[in-house]
């Protein structure tokens, strides 16, 4: 566990030591800020509904971009070999890198706290859904980070890792809007798989174990998948 912590800290430092972190955060803030405030005054409602409504789609793009380098870069420059011959196990590597990804997503959300503060100044803001929204955002970010880490374990090419991660996260986000193409039997299963639905539930301020279990399951499946891939590699 101490080893995982070391790796996590190192990865998080690596994000902020290079320009990636600042570029990703800037783009994220620009996109969310624009989409949120361009319609905010038309609705004339003191809520962050629109912000959280867009978040899963934006995360589906941004989170795989954050996680794509975690393992693919190690494979590419070969540092994976030096890392793995230090006294660490696969679990330490995966947990450490996953934690760094989640911490980065959380750090990315911090500047957006300016939105609820601004909105609260303009009107009476209901803080319940806001807290739920941020909690859900962290869960969603964790789930997508796990998927992104799995994608990153599959290849040594960061672009490929990004595209795989994007495809999976995007499908998870939009699957509930595609169910009408599907046979009736699958509708229940597919709408349970939809990250968007679970996220919106939490963002309404209703914290249901079903939604939490969903996010934790996605995390677990992603991380376990990454574990199996690393194991198969040697």
């Amino acid at each position: 566990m101490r080893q995982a912590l070391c790796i996590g800290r190192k990865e998080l430092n690596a994000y902020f030591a290079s320009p990636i972190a600042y570029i990703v955060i800037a783009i994220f803030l620009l996109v969310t800020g624009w989409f949120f405030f361009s319609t905010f005054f038309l609705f004339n409602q003191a809520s962050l509904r629109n912000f959280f409504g867009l978040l899963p789609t934006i995360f589906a793009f941004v989170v795989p971009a954050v996680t794509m380098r975690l393992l693919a870069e190690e494979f590419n420059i070969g540092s994976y070999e030096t890392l793995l011959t230090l006294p660490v196990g696969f679990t330490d590597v995966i947990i450490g890198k996953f934690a760094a990804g989640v911490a980065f997503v959380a750090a990315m959300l911090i500047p957006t706290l300016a939105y609820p503060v601004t909105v609260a100044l303009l009107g009476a803001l209901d803080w319940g859904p806001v807290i739920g929204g941020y909690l859900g955002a962290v869960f969603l970010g964790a789930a997508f980070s796990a998927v992104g880490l799995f994608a990153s374990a599959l290849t040594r090419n960061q672009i490929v890792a990004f595209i795989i991660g994007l495809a999976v996260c995007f499908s998870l986000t939009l699957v509930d809007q595609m169910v009408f193409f599907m046979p009736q039997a699958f509708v229940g299963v597919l709408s349970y798989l939809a990250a968007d639905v679970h996220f919106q539930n939490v963002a309404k301020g209703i914290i249901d174990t079903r939604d939490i279990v969903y996010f934790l399951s996605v995390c677990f499946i992603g991380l376990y998948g990454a574990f199996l891939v690393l194991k198969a590699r040697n």
Partner: protein
Amino acid sequence: MIRVENLTKYYDDVCAVDQISFNVQRGEILGLLGPNGAGKTTTLRMLTGFLQPTGGQIQIGNFSIKDGLLEIKKILGYLPESAPLYHDMLVFDYLQFVADLRGIGAPRRLSRIRELGDLCGINEVMHQPIGELSRGYRQRVGLAHAMMNDPEVLVLDEPTSGLDPNQIAEIREIIRRIGKAKTVVFSTHILSEAEATCDRVAIIHRGKIAADSRTAHLKEALGGRSQIHLMLEQADPATVQRELAAVPGVTRVEVLEPTDGTIRLVLTCDASRDPRADLYRRIRQTDWTLLEFHQETFSLEDIFRELTKES
């Protein structure tokens, strides 16, 4: 210290390492020699637990690689080929990260990094990103990384490749110094390096061990045998060949292409007696002009070429 038995590795159905067995004692430096693609790197990767063997046993200290991998990693230092390290980290930060993972506590960490900085000569690049370092410095940072925990077993994959002659000498010196108390296994395809640094040499060819013995013994096995190179003027090749083959100790006379009235000869001699004095007397009795006369003993290089010849 290290016991390897019937180690085998298949990549899909290509056999990279085929039933290798060897032992390394504490305080011994073993050089793994072999042509490119012989299976050196694969062997070292299995030794360090990075790759899982398809078959066979590896025991390091009291631990087997199957169920004591984490314990082995704790007493082992490994520098992979071409020192793949995180490019965007500063040298100091990187060494600190390694110390952290090795469980070296904060009070000891700084002094250990300083020690290694002195030992490997990297103090002046401590605050540069690894990606900006020259090849030689990066290799030395890699060496510092491998020695962080003062390892019982040090495994180095081609530690001197791509370095300039001064750096090579330095790295060899470091290896020799460590090898006095610890166990060192390293791979190389430079023979003089193995000759200069190792106590023992194992030659790997096509995934098998072609020879494994002390450096001195290996030379003796083919040693004693030598070649004498001659250059003569005003001589008839056929006569020379007949005359010199009759000298005791000469087993074979080979006449190379004659040019401008001079002929070159290569005489193969066996170990039983030194024919040089007899040869000289024989040549003096004729009216040939002797232009060149020198002897070469079989080097490790010849042994290597002989053992790894494509049949």
